[in-house]
């Protein structure tokens, strides 16, 4: 009975000692992680030999010392020994194990460091990629704007000679257009209703220039008002319709813009009368940077998930059709309506 009892005590002390050993190593590794992590990542052979090799010996001895102080009754089954003798006995038995533990921790930390740096590099690379795309977008959009800006200013300039009120109105409309553009800032996508608002303004200005020669129609399915589209995606197409088609007609021009959805696809259609594609292409050496830009932007945003086609329906009638994935804004659209007296 007494024997069994002794055995029981021995077992529990052994288990405790074993746990304590791992606990002390845990604390040491934790200290190592917080204080020397960056040195571990960057350590070269010299630092390893001059700093970490002595450190590994020191840490092992330290751990063993603490442990020996905590468990004076070990090793069991031997006559009681003084402290130094016990320390040397345990060091003799476990120094190699301790060193292995230390160096395992060392290389584990180093591995984690490599992994983190690898992830960081990857993140920066993807950020750069998106910045690059954004910069390209900006550049493309800048190509769209001034073109139109200067034309309009020219229009204002000519109106100033003849009709001051009309010049005033056009200047105000231009300011409104610029205000909308500035407001959007760097937004890559906007609701279709905003894009159509912009187009309406643009058309109002063109209407003034073409003084009733062109009949304009817009049919937007209410269901797609909220669909998001790339900013300034329709304007270049409409501009193109005027530049290469409608502007060459002296009367009875027709421009129609249709937006509708077919399942999960948003379909935008711009149809205009004109002189037909082939004749237009002969007259204009470049068929507009605008359309190429539109195609580039669609490709960047949607990959293969879109279509763009330009075709001649019958004599002079040209149709551009875009299809994009039908998407809606995740966040609700800004509300700026107020009521009152």
């Amino acid at each position: 009975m007494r024997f069994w009892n002794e055995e029981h005590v021995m077992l529990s002390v052994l288990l405790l000692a074993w746990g304590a050993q791992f606990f002390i190593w845990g604390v040491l590794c934790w200290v190592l992680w917080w204080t020397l992590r960056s040195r571990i990542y960057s350590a070269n052979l010299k630092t390893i030999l001059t700093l970490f090799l002595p450190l590994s010996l020191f840490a092992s001895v330290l751990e063993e010392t603490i442990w020996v102080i905590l468990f004076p009754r070990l090793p069991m089954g031997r006559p009681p020994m003084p402290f130094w003798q016990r320390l040397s006995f345990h060091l003799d038995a476990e120094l190699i194990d301790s060193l292995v533990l230390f160096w395992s921790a060392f290389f584990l930390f180093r591995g984690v460091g490599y992994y983190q740096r690898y992830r960081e590099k990857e993140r920066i690379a993807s950020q750069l990629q998106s910045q690059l795309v954004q910069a390209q977008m900006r550049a493309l959009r800048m190509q769209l704007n001034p073109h139109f800006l200067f034309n309009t200013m020219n229009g204002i300039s000519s109106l100033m000679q003849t009709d001051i009120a009309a010049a005033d109105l056009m200047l105000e409309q231009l300011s409104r257009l610029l205000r909308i553009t500035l407001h959007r800032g760097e937004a890559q996508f906007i609701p279709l209703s905003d894009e159509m608002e912009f187009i309406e303004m643009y058309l109002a200005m063109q209407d003034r220039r073409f003084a009733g020669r062109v009949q304009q129609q817009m049919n937007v399915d209410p269901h797609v008002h909220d669909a998001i589209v790339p900013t300034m995606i329709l304007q270049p197409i409409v501009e193109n319709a005027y530049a290469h088609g409608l502007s060459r007609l002296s009367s009875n021009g027709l421009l129609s813009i249709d937006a509708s959805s077919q399942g999960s696809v948003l379909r935008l259609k711009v149809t205009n009368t004109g002189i037909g594609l082939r004749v237009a292409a002969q007259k204009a050496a470049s068929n507009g940077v605008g359309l190429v830009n539109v195609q580039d932007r669609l490709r960047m945003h949607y990959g293969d998930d879109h279509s763009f086609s330009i075709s001649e329906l019958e004599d002079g009638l040209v149709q551009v059709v875009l299809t994009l994935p039908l998407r809606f804004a995740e966040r609700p659209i800004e509300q700026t309506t107020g009521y009152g007296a």
Partner: protein
Amino acid sequence: MIQAVLADDEVLARQKLRQLLREFPEIEVAGEGATASETIALVRATKPDLLFLDVRMPDMDGFDVVGELSAAGAPVMPSIIFTTAYDRYALRAFEIHAVDYLLKPFTLERFRSATQRALDHIRVSKQNPNANAPKSPNGTPYTTRIVFKSKGRILFLPVTEICWIGAEENYVRICTQSETHLLRETMTHLEEKLDPNIFLRVHRSSIVNLQYVKEVRPEIDGEYGVHLLNGQKIPMSRTYRSKIKNWLER
């Protein structure tokens, strides 16, 4: 004679206002302020009926001017028309009951309508200082104006100018005599805000301003249609027909 004060830090902007005001012989310019403090002093001294106020001025902004004037217990606040190049203060301007909000550059046309509105406003408040707007069942007065952004400008639209309103999914289209505006709003919410003595829901997706209704007549298919003064025709549904009957019999 109506006294007006012009407040803008740019001399050219003040000049433009002064020039445009020549069209209104009943308005006399009582003074010009180039800074907010100058304007406050000027308003206190001359007690104008109308104040053209820039938002961004060197010392304080236009709202500080209004705050200062109303805090000092000015007996009568002038009617205020904001003139500014910034559109982001519009809702605030609306909340302090500004008459209008002109975005620079503005046209003569736009200036005219704003000033005319201010004149009407001043005339009404002089005749009848305690006029009350009709109240809705829950006690809040019906809206007389709606503020919103449309096509790059700010509109303080008096509801009397609305001819009819049509629903388009999550939007409503507000049609005036000359223009249409798409607003992100629901028919139900809008209907609650509008005075039912003036605006009538004739269809799930349309509300008409009765002032602009010419006639209601049956169509070939047996349905009724509402014909507006400008010739537009709005279909009317059966469920709402009894309502218009009630209105006709009043």
